[in-house]
């Protein structure tokens, strides 16, 4: 199991969280915590960059939904960037590709 590694940087449009490793039952809580404490301002866009993601189960998806709720509560937007093909397929099955803004890469608009 790869450890989860979350790095945070701020851009002109809002914070970017880069998530690397496995977003599974044991490790998703770390992302939830970090997201819940993330300061967000109205009109910003929180980007979650999943280019380093190796695995994501249902609890990982829950963490992404928590991030979406957090952004909505702050009147901010949220986007998932560089979603790996496997996760993209799952998001399409469960209909979340219609709920999240999906970007090819973190710096794409």
């Amino acid at each position: 199991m790869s450890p989860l590694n979350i790095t945070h940087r701020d851009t002109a449009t809002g914070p970017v969280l880069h998530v690397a490793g496995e977003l599974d039952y044991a490790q998703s809580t770390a992302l939830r915590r970090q997201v819940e404490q993330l300061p967000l301002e109205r009109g910003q866009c929180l980007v979650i960059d999943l280019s380093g993601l190796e695995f994501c189960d249902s609890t990982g998806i829950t963490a992404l939904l928590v991030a979406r709720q957090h952004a909505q509560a702050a009147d901010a937007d949220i986007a998932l960037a560089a979603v790996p093909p496997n996760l993209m397929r799952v998001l399409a099955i469960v209909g979340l590709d219609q709920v999240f803004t999906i970007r090819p890469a973190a710096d794409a608009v």
Partner: protein
Amino acid sequence: MCRVDEEPEPSGTGGDADMDVAFTTLLEDSIEELYESAPCGYLSTLMDGTIAKINTTLLNLLGLTREAVVGRKRFTDLLTVGGKLYHETHFAPLLRMQGELRGIALEMKTAGGGRLPVLVSSLVKHGSEGEPLLIRTTVFDASDRRAYEEELLRRRQDAEQARAEAERARAEAEEARRQAEADRARLADALAVLQQSLVPTSLPDVPGLETAVYYHTASADRLGGDFYDLFPLDGKRWAFFLGDVCGKGPQAASLTSLTRYTLRAAALHDPEPAAALTTLNAVLHERYAAGGDPRYCTCVFGIVEPATELGHTTVRLASGGHPPALVLRADGRADFLPAPGGLLIGILPTAPIGTAETTLAPGETLLLYTDGLTEARTGPDRGNLYGEDALLAFAADRAPATPQETITALTGLLKSFGDGLDDDTALLALGVPATHPSLPPATNNPR
């Protein structure tokens, strides 16, 4: 010693001379001196036990003077009470009978009030006519031997005690193990009861329909996150659903329980597949996501109306973010039955629900499954997912197949995944028998 190349020396000189000196000294050692100072005690008594003669060694051992003993005391007077008793009951009678006793352990008392363990041997001297004259006795100080024996005894007692303690510890460990096992069994019973509230133990018989099911729980506590059900709506229609809640263990189980009973109640209230899922979505969202703790499930909900005569059975489905159902056709094809546009149940206040409809001809089977099947990791390094394409090909290879044949084949497939199957997996198959059974009498089958 003797050197062979020399003449033997005259005796009395050199090394031999030393030995001669030693012998001379021994010869000068009087018999009396040997008796008095021998390394053991001697005493001689008359046949009534009166002490007639005693050596210095024994007097010193007992701390007595010759004057106080000779002619004044009997042998038994020198013994402790216990020694005296033993002497009277065993020693003396045996000695009278055998004329000789060896190495009998007795206790003598010393002038200082102490006890002296001794080993006693006695011999009766007889006169020329064979009449007993006196008793000669040797007394060995057995203190050291007694101490040794006591040490042995103490060691044995220590060992015995250690053994007893080990035995007690073992018994305690055994008791703890039994207790743990009883606790585990009770927990397993509780979990089994709980598990039955999540999925039915058996499916009801549906007239005109065959059903089969398989449920694999990956977690050790057997509380799975997958669920399914099949139940009658009215005389003609049956509802069924199959889904997968997020998470694992007890939390997932409580979500599963809420989901199952919500769907059952919703279906009775409004038997439209999409309506049941819309109700479930509202309930889950209100219960979890609205409080900042999003929990959700994917689910296929269906209504089946078995054909009451030879003909097609209608199936209507609604899906919220669940993988598409699969149909094994009578002509050997296999098709997915997508219900696109649906979303995970429980994350938005109102969720889009996808719908689909199909008919099943005799010999055709509808399969619902959870993604434990399609997401199983395959390949030598478990790096690939089994996937929907492989599932479709697997089903096409086996079509047409009855529900039971389909489930049996898939159960074998799941087993072949080994540890690549790391998620719960539920399978539910409904099918129309290829040769439709003759209908029961109309009185038993109200329309």
